């Protein structure tokens, strides 16, 4: 078993783990729990792409991993800013009543 095969197997393993973790999106229960699962998809996706990049010796895939890591951050930050903003707005509404 060459090292490239081992890295491909590791990539497949990480991918399966991330896919199982996505079940948390179905079961929730809060939206924050779903974001946790998306965050796992982000870092797991970066790991899979890096493993693939080294396994098939195709360095440009590393750039794809970089973009995925960057975009996964923006998704979570955008979503959570919206979530916290709306909850502070409702806090203010209850205080005014």
């Amino acid at each position, binding site marked *: 078993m060459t090292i490239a095969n081992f890295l491909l197997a*590791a990539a497949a393993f*990480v991918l399966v783990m991330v896919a199982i973790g996505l079940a948390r999106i179905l079961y929730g229960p809060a939206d924050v729990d779903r974001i946790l699962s998306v965050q796992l998809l982000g870092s797991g996706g970066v790991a899979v792409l*890096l493993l693939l990049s*080294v396994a098939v010796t195709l*360095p440009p895939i590393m750039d794809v*991993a970089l973009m995925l890591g960057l975009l996964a951050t923006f998704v979570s930050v955008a979503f959570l800013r919206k979530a916290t903003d709306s909850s502070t707005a409702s806090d203010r509404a209850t205080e005014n009543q």
Partner: protein
Amino acid sequence: MRLALDIITVVLVSAGGFFFLAGTIGLLRFPDTLTRLHALTKVDNLGLGLIVFGLLPQVESRIDALKLISIWLLVQMSGAIVSQLIAEATRRSGRQT
């Protein structure tokens, strides 16, 4: 020498894969959002970190090695920011489900 580097890769990437396994189980089995966040940060920091350090002996050029480390640092920073935001959103929602 080649064999020693390959062994380092196999050990570190396997350890990283183990953390992905642990993180997925934690994300699915832990009872509330904050404990799930704890499981997720282990994946972000240790899982991806060990995989990146396991890949370092396999890349040919120094630039690619530097890129691997930068990607890991980016995901590390993103994980730190997002985990703070998730904890804040959980605290504000006041529901620990």
